[in-house]
């Protein structure tokens, strides 16, 4: 087990973001009402598609046209869109619903996909969490991330990368904690004064987690522009306050003025001075 410290400085920042983009497994994008994460999700999808990966998108919250807008034709042609928004309860089709729900259907599609790295974007994971039991989703996410490594006897490929968009306000601490324990990386979006920043927490297996805060912006053509560095107004980092161990004591460490004078004027026994 080698402890790896959080990266700091110039080259470390790009490395951190690049390593997030290169990470396989579950990557959680936590957004909030003020700082939406769908544009970051689309930027990561575009980057994966341009990188030659197969991208599957499970769209639940927005329509397909809205998701596809902003992508150019190269990206759109590589995108495989599974639409749950138009007909979430599957009323229009008379065939039976696939077992395992929408995530099970996605898993089947990924299995049938050819070799090569696969990225799955879940838009959004919150939608699924509100409708399906949390334990089932956790199991399905782990199964999704794992199954590509053993595609029925072939050589072990890379595991699937799952990008899940999670809205922070919709869930209590339970599902949030459960999903973070499964995730390889968590990107929490926040920002100060119009500048969006991302706090990235990388949990590498058997290593210390590293975290980093970056400023970024999404350009109109949905490419990611990293501006590096923590936000301009550094709000106090909750991880590193200096701790004074003499606070919160139940006994009094100091003497009042009167007590100090009394102490000073005390004559010690067995002290033979001229007064005695």
């Amino acid at each position: 087990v080698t402890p790896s410290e959080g990266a700091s400085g110039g080259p470390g920042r790009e490395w951190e973001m690049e390593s997030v983009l290169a990470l396989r497994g579950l990557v959680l994008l936590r957004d909030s009402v003020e700082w939406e994460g769908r544009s970051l999700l689309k930027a990561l999808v575009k980057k994966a598609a341009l990188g030659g990966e197969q991208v599957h998108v499970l769209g639940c919250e927005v329509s397909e046209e809205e998701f596809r807008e902003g992508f150019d034709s190269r990206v759109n042609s590589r995108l495989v869109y599974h639409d749950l928004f138009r007909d979430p309860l599957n009323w229009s089709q008379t065939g039976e619903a696939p077992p395992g729900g929408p995530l099970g259907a996605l898993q089947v599609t990924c299995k049938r996909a050819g070799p090569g790295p696969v990225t799955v974007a879940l838009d959004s994971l919150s939608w699924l969490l509100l409708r399906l039991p949390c334990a089932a989703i956790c199991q399905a996410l782990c199964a999704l991330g794992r199954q590509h490594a053993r595609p029925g006897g072939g050589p072990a490929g890379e595991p699937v990368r799952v990008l899940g968009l999670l809205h922070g306000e919709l869930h209590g601490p339970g599902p949030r904690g459960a999903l973070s324990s499964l995730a390889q990386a968590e990107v929490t979006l926040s920002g100060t004064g119009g500048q969006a920043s991302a706090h990235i927490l990388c949990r590498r297996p058997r290593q210390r987690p590293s975290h980093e805060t970056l400023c970024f912006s999404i350009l109109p053509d949905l490419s990611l522009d990293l501006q590096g560095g923590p936000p301009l107004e550094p709000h106090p980092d909750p991880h590193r306050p200096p701790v004074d161990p003499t606070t919160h004591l139940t006994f009094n460490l100091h003497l009042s003025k009167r007590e100090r004078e009394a102490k000073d004027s005390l004559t010690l026994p067995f002290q033979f001075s001229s007064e005695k």
Partner: protein
Amino acid sequence: MAAVATCGTGVGKTGSMVMAGSKNNVTGFQRRGPRASGSDSSYSRLVSIAGTRPSVRNGQLLVSTGLPALDQLLGGGLAVGTVLLIEEDKYNIYSSLLFKYFLAEGIVNGHTLLVASAKEDPADILQELPAPLLDDNGKKDFDEDVCNHKTSESNIKMKIAWRYQLLPKMEQAGPVSSSRFGHYYDVSKKMPQELIEASKVHGFFFPEKSSSTPNIEPCSLTHGYIKLLQFIQNIIYEEGFDGSNPQKKQKNILRIGIQNLGSPLWGDDICCTENCDNSHSLTKFLYVLRGLLRTSLSACVITMPTHLIQNKAIIARVTNLSDTVVGLESFIGSERETNPLYKDYHGLIHIRQIPRLNNLIYDVSDVKDLAFKLKRKLFTIERLHLPPDLSDTVSRSSKQDLAEPSKLLGPGCGAMAGGKKHLDF
């Protein structure tokens, strides 16, 4: 408990049980002498199993947890037939390390392993086990004749009085098994492949076993727990760990390791919601598991993400249902990381519960403040010491120091010393 079991089933092996009226003797007093042929445990009737030793306090059969420091804190080791629950730290780094130490100790001692996980394939877990540090003494444990070999060496190395050369170098304490109890491991190296392949491991990887569609009845165990219990029961029965297979020549210990019990990957909801339907599933599982363990020669280590469990009452119930409970609290990401008190350590270890087995008193150590740190090769548990107060300003003459703000990290002095400048008594 297990001590009684080994006595009871050891009838055929040692010949020191004598029937009073079986021979024509004048008196009823029979000499109890060692009648067994070729057995090395000539001083006791206990069948010695590799890797175990009786506790010095009450004779309870103990196995090592893989960390000699932890063994000492638990009163000598983990009792056979009991459960050790490890409450995971937040990022599951150190608890998985303790889990691997337990499994590695089983491999080194030749015990049978049962590894159950819902997150990682047990085969992958086995590849990550730390390598044992076998020094000269340890290597001798795997050989039979060592006395002759060593005495010839001693002629070269040091001058021993001539009589002492005849004694074997390695002291074989009487009823204890010959191999050492508790080994040290090098975390930076992996366990050699031949050792892993020579050991017997049963793996339970829940996603593979749960391929059938579960029909879950309400108020019953979660599907994952039912499967796991059936698997453990099958292994115990088939391999004869509960004494059901009397033809077995050599008794062995079954080490069960269950990882991340209670996490949503087992199908359990307790980490997700506070009021869940199957809130008794985990407690029922632990109850049945304890019954299985008490009637077999096995020891179990479970890691559980208790920091994720939403309902605190469940944690209390789980603690009561386990025998030994150890909690790990790592400093990563918490405010204690920057506390100068803890700067040498990586986390705290809390011994939350120690069982009373065949005993009226607890076997707790008197040290409550324990911290651990993971060096490059070794995981150590130490007593947390407050650093000495190195400041020389506690005398009356330096009253002006009282007005200064507390300086925590004074340059050049001990970490805490600066902050204590304004103590006066």
